[in-house]
């Protein structure tokens, strides 16, 4: 039972990272139709920047977090303008190739700037909450709360603000949106930056829980893509959150009860089984509405 609760908590922690990263990619893919394979590198960049701000510059953890979000937002916007705006109109496959190339480049840049050895950040609070045999570090609970709050904020932005309305408009039909006076390119760049900084935030939040290395983004990218494909196009962000948490729980339970090396294998086995049964994802939407957010 202790193992179960422990893994449940671990699953929630992992799930908070997955839901932020997954939401980011989901927004980018649905609004801009870019299968951004370099999404996980924004997660890695978030971790590295947090390391620099906290360990290198001696900032406090939470102000550092805010600065990371700002920095990754700028990097994301720059990436959208410098790379993806120039690849507009290309087929999905070509875009995926380009973003794979971009992720290789970014990983190597991270390695050149911060070195290839693993780095670590200490958590801002090191209290451990004990409930009987169960021990959970307070930081992990805070992390889950922060991620949940951010997810709600993002949902509010997407579904309740003018920007969100524009974003959903370009997701549904870019040209019609432009015809009705939306500056679709500007919205697209901001959406890309927003998606990126969600991944960056997740990276910074999880920095104390992970060993920071240049290739840490790959696992996040893969999970975000699994979420993207499982959810399918045209679902609400709440589905993304549910899928992310479910995936994280599956992964931690496999790690806890079966074997730690098999965790990603099981995730992909489930993915293949799932796609065999439901090639278009969980959401049952008409083809005409696909691509909406």
């Amino acid at each position, binding site marked *: 039972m202790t193992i179960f609760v422990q893994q449940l908590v671990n699953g929630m922690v992992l799930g908070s990272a997955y839901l932020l990263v997954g939401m980011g990619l989901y927004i980018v893919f649905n609004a801009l139709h870019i*299968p951004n394979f370099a999404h996980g590198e924004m997660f890695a960049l978030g971790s590295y920047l947090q390391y620099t701000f906290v360990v290198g510059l001696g900032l406090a953890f939470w102000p550092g977090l805010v600065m990371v979000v700002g920095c990754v937002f700028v990097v994301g916007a720059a990436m959208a303008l410098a*790379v993806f705006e*120039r*690849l507009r109109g*290309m*087929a*999905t*496959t*070509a875009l*995926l*190739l*380009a973003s*794979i*190339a*971009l992720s*290789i*480049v970014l*990983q*190597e*840049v991270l390695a*050149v700037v911060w070195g290839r050895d693993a780095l670590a950040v200490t958590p801002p609070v090191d209290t451990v909450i004990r409930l009987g045999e169960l021990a959970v570090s307070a930081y992990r609970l805070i992390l889950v709360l922060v991620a949940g709050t951010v997810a709600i904020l993002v949902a509010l932005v997407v579904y309740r603000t003018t920007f969100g309305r524009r974003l959903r408009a370009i997701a549904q039909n870019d040209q019609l949106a432009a015809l009705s006076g939306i500056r679709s390119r500007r919205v697209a760049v901001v959406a890309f930056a927003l998606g990126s900084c969600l991944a960056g935030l997740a990276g910074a939040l999880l920095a104390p829980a992970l060993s920071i290395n240049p290739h840490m983004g*790959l696992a996040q990218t*893969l999970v975000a*893509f*699994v979420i993207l*494909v499982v959810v399918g196009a045209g679902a609400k962000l709440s589905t993304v959150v549910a899928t992310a948490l479910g995936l994280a729980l599956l992964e931690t339970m496999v790690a806890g009860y079966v*074997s730690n*090396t*098999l965790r*990603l*294998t099981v995730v*992909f*086995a489930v*993915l*293949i089984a799932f*796609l*065999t049964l439901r*090639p278009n994802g969980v959401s049952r939407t008409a083809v005409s509405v696909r691509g909406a957010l």
Partner: protein
Amino acid sequence: MNAGAIRRDAGSGNLAARSVPPAARRSPGLVVAALVLLVILAPATAAFVGGRLTSQALAIGTSVLLAAVVAVGVNVTVGFAGMLNLGNSLFFAIGAYVAVHAATTWGLPGAATFLVAVAACVGVAGALGLLLLRASGLQFGLMTIGVALVTYTVLIAWTPVTGGASGTSTAGPIREGGLPAVLSLGPWEIVTPRDHFVAAVALAMLCLASMVLLRRTRLMVRWECARDDEFLAASVGIDVARVRAAAYVVGSVPAGAAGVLFAYWSVLVTPSSFGFAEGSIEPLAMVILGGAGTVLGPFVGAAVVVGLPELLRGFADYAVLGYGVLLLLTVRFAPGGIVGTVAEWWARVRATREGA
């Protein structure tokens, strides 16, 4: 989402003209004769030249050629059939580990090893293809990434068969001297680095010749149709899923054969050669850089991705960064890759000359 439009974006609007390549107008007999000559003469030349090369040059040559053979397989799925295959490391691994077992426990001769490895690849690819090819485009790409990750995990976790993370080798027991196994192909025994180089040349030329012949088949036309527009292809009676499954199976064969030669050449086989970046992304990068869908592209790409870092030893730390940047620039500015771009330029030059 239609796959492989990367070549269509290359500005080659003359699809009709391209579907009947000039080579197809030459008589088949002449082509076959030329290819047979190539497959015989190239290794013979390699044997002659190989004697004068340093062992370092031989090693670079062999690794470039083996990488090229793997890339030829990736080119079938990615370039010819337009499926984003990111899981090719599986078949390279099957070839290599089959070779290790053939050399140590089964005691198979060389030719039989190649047959078993290729048969295993075809069987696995056929079975997997049934599952994977229910999806297409992005979903297919993601599932093949899954295949690559599962392959790597299995190689590490299945210790009794694969030796786990520390790997396994073709060498015999230490008490018998721990000598590397010798690959014997009929009367020809492959022992020295020069022999391995010659064998790699022979395998590469065999692949090259098969690709030239493959391009003249109906299957190739079907692949190109399915790649350029799957709905249009289906509308003229092409069974897109089946044609793609065929590409997946055909593409697995060169990787399996290269795996066998790789295992005998490198002696020690560890999972690190079959990771996602080394086993799947690098061959893909070679295909895209060299020219997806061209016969020579994979060879040029392998020379760039594997060969250049060897020549620029001082910048070894930046090799991956270099090919990443090159790949990004290729996708943006020259979607036809090196060979595709040169061929297009040459076609334009010829067209102006004939017009003048």
